């Protein structure tokens, strides 16, 4: 059981770290972008960072496999869904993103979604908890 716990926690931590790095990149990109994009995308990135860090804290404190699975799945759902924001909002001309920044944000959004779905399926398999936890 402890092997499974370590495997699940380790997988979650790795993918959560990837999401954290991507969120920090979103924050940096939004800060260097147009004033119209700065506030909304910075807030969005900060929400992502808070979710990722609090999720990591909760999983680290979890005592058993089921608890790890539940807390991991909840965190993964939240940032996977929020990946949709980076995928759909930057192309709007209103935000005046430079073309490379816009492409970078869309790619980050896509990675968040793909990595999130992968992690959800793996954690489900490892811990046996429902995706609809």
């Amino acid at each position, binding site marked *: 059981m402890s092997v499974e716990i370590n495997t699940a926690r380790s997988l979650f931590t790795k993918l959560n770290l990837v999401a954290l790095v991507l969120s920090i990149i979103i924050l940096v990109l939004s800060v260097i972008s147009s004033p*119209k994009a700065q506030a909304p995308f910075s807030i969005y990135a900060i929400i992502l960072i808070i979710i990722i860090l609090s999720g990591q804290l909760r999983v680290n404190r979890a005592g058993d496999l089921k608890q790890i699975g539940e807390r991991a799945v909840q965190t993964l759902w939240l940032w*996977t*869904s929020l990946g949709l924001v980076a995928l759909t*909002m930057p192309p709007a001309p209103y935000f005046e993103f430079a073309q490379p920044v816009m492409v970078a944000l869309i790619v980050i959004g896509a990675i968040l979604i793909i990595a999130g779905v992968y992690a959800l399926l793996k954690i489900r398999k490892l811990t046996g908890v429902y995706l609809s936890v």
Partner: protein
Amino acid sequence: MTEVKDYFGDYALAKIPEPETRTFLNQLMVFMGVLAVWAAVFAGAALASWYDATTLVVSVVIGCIILGIIAYLTGYIGSRTKASTYVILRHSMGRLIAMIAGLIISGISAMIWFAYETWLFGVIMQGVFPDIPFMRVEVASIWGGLLMMSTAILGYRALSVLSYFIVPAWFVIIPMALAAAIDINGGWSALMAAKPPTLMDIGVGITFTVGVYIVGATIAPDVTRFSRRPHDGPLAWFIHVVVFMPIIMAAGGFLQLLTPGVNLAAAMVGMGMIWAVLLTGVVGQWSTNDNNLYSSSLAWCNAIPIKRVYWVAIMGIIGTVIAALIALGFGVSLEALLLLGSFLGTWIPPMAAAMIADFYVVKPFFLGVKAVDKRYEWGPGTVYNLVNWPAVVAIIVGGFLAWWMPQVYPTIPGVVIGFGVSLILFILLMAACVKLGIKYGIGKWVETEKGF
């Protein structure tokens, strides 16, 4: 009382077993999935013709707090009994009236809203992609309706997964879009200065807000029965309505104040947020409408005992056909449909009142069932009254007042009056029956081993 087999599927007439219960976040996501719909934004826009920004927010917040309290009370019954709304109604109204009430609350009403939302889905699709044949209102209504049926057929797990997927994004995209729309239409100072031509009494806005979501508050047990801890589901309902519903309604109202006649979806399209409109329109509408169909199927199972998936299919196909016929203009009047939905809706708050009064007042104080877990015991062999006449009288009187009073006195909050009158009348009638030894139950119904 024995454990009942899940004969109808997704525990339509059976208690939710412990392994199938869900977390607080799950409940919050499912409720917010219901709220994540453009119709809620449009409802907020309607308030902008009556109020300035501050009064609009105050009226919405007060309305939402009232809704939150009502739903906390109904939702708690569901999380305690692990029963759907329609099974809960058996105790306060009697088995026969619970069948009829269930059909009024969800069986028919929710199907009507399913049809309306499916048609609206088609309208949004055509609005965003006017030149694509696949996105024409009538075509999009059909494939949209089938899409929404799919998760309702799979059941609560699918509703949850869809909600988890869309809700966090929806509730970030809409405020972002609102902030952008306010910015290009004069900013916050212009919003604060904007006033409608004539101001309405704040009570009208409160009643309007309560009316928008009172059905949702009444049927909260359909979801909270999956609650792992007794207060998880009710608290999730309270938070989603008090924190998030004002944001959504303000989103519609604020933009309407700044640019009358322009809705947020159109403004988003104008700002080039096409993909965001598509996402929030398609998946948001989907996560709301599958809940309509889900609740409708639960109510039908309580009235006519066939498997839940068949009811989803039957009601889903009827709703989709109605939506397509509205789009094609083939003899189905949208106005008549909404009128019927609204008329049925006026009878729902009195039913919620009877349910709340029975569980929290009549059972513990008049009938002496103090223990919360013992108040609504159910399962094979449980004997119910066929009709509880005090509930019928209270609902008819309250429902009539809720329907009639706003027609004669438009400023009187019919929904709130109907709820209040039914609550008090039911308690008084039951008190009289118990004290004077008058029989309040007519006939008997024994629950079968399938839970029917």
